[in-house]
């Protein structure tokens, strides 16, 4: 992502990052911790083994409230292909804002709080997303940017043990559910979700409560702070798309393998921006597919590297790639022509003018361990 000039914004947890010895980098207009002193590999492994705490306050929290006589879910469905009307209170879903070409303006989580819809969108897109919502929906829903709120993710197999000490009800929440819980005296909006492939929670709280509450959670012995570096390696191993890398305004949900996020009713009825193209791709298939790619050697392949078939013909491009500490080797994702997308298909990826042997690999690289109840 290119960084706009100008002063960087700070999340409510910024003072803590400095205190914890984080290496801070510009990310989506914010000064964010890429790693703490233990380093990315140790942070990654800690999250898979215990509980990692991530500052994700830079992401955009947006609240939608129906105006009189309106149904906020039905209104939002005009901009996203997800089944929002099917979300009962206390449930959440992953979806995308689409454009007229069926491309992905951003991906987001939508939760039904009962009274409102709570959206969590990407940091680098939140201003544009709010403008998009306002442009299309302002006559029918109230749109509130809650950008000063804090948001942390607590991820890993011990996350439920830790959070359960503060709010026992959280233990029984299944994956992709949401509830208002009191944690250390603070009313938080907690979802059982995350972006690491592990069990865990995202916890939204008033900005002024973020620092004390996070300090409190970090005092639990299982919890360590985790930076954006490990967040990226964790989500890549989990086969989860990063907007701006794996998905963007030029890629459709079908190409990106996000078919699971579009319910049958929406596929049939359409009614969102770019529906014709997405419906056609459901019917006829997409010309290219986002796939997992596993290099045979130890050398990582990185975003923007060319993908060729074993005869040397250009068939696609790597969109995310790096080293997977849990996979214990290089892992990547990229788009390939539909004919080359089957698992096991041999490929080459060009790194520093050399062709490295790779193969299409099933996603995720590391099995998801969500709590399904």
């Amino acid at each position, binding site marked *: 992502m290119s960084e706009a000039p100008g002063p960087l914004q700070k999340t409510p947890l910024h003072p803590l990052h400095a205190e914890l010895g984080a290496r801070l980098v510009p990310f989506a207009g914010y000064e964010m911790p890429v790693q703490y002193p233990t380093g*990315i590999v140790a942070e990654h492994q800690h999250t898979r083994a215990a509980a990692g705490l991530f500052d994700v306050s830079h992401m955009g929290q947006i609240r939608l409230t129906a105006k009189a006589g309106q149904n906020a879910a039905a209104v939002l469905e005009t901009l996203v292909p997800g089944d929002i009307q099917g979300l009962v209170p206390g449930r959440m879903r992953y979806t995308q804002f689409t454009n007229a070409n069926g491309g992905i303006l951003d991906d987001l989580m939508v939760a039904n709080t009962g009274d409102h819809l709570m959206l969590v969108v990407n940091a680098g897109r939140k201003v544009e997303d709010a403008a998009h919502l306002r442009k299309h929906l302002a006559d029918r829903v109230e749109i509130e940017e809650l950008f000063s709120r804090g948001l942390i993710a607590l991820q890993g197999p011990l996350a439920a043990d830790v959070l359960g000490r503060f709010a026992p009800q959280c233990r029984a929440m299944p994956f992709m559910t949401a509830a208002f819980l009191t944690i250390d005296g603070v009313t938080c909006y907690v979802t059982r979700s995350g972006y690491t492939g592990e069990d865990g929670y995202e916890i939204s709280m008033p900005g002024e409560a973020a620092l004390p509450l996070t300090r409190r959670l970090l005092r639990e012995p299982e919890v360590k702070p985790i930076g954006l*570096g490990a967040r990226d390696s964790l989500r890549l191993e989990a086969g989860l798309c990063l907007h701006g890398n794996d998905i963007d305004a030029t890629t459709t949900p079908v190409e990106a393998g996000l078919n699971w996020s579009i319910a049958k009713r929406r596929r049939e009825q359409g009614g969102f921006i770019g529906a014709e193209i997405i419906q056609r791709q459901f019917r006829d298939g997409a010309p290219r597919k986002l796939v997992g790619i596993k290099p045979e050697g*130890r050398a*990582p392949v*990185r975003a923007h590297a060319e993908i060729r078939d074993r005869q040397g013909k250009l068939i696609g491009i790597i969109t995310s790639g*790096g080293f997977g*500490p849990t996979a214990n080797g*290089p892992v990547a994702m990229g788009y390939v022509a539909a004919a080359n997308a089957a698992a096991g298909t041999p490929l080459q990826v060009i790194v*520093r003018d050399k062709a490295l042997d790779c193969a299409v690999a099933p996603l995720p690289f590391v099995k998801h361990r969500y709590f399904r109840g």
Partner: protein
Amino acid sequence: MSTVKFTEDHEWIRVDGDTGTIGITDYAQEQLGDVVYVELPEVGRQVEKGKDMAVVESVKAASEVYAPVTGSVTAINDKLSAEPATVNSAAMGDGWFVKIKLSNPAELDKLMDEASYKKYVEGLG
């Protein structure tokens, strides 16, 4: 008696006679973070002062390593293929990259000694 010299790109070279052992400095490994892969040149390859010699990959990114001086590669550190993290744990020792036979030892005069390098790194903040 060996001498160690340093470059502004954070390589070190330890010279014994006409042979130099080359690696990256402790400062460099710390900046890179966890090293997960090292690509080394073949034995026999000519390397040229200031030009690409090797690549070191951290979790986040790939970085070039430049030859501090001109010469031909006489040995590479095979240990790094199986244990690239040795670069983190022992950057100035077991984490060495290559040994070269120096073509022009006078090039060493332009490099920093340990005290100058230390001062240089402190100046980077």
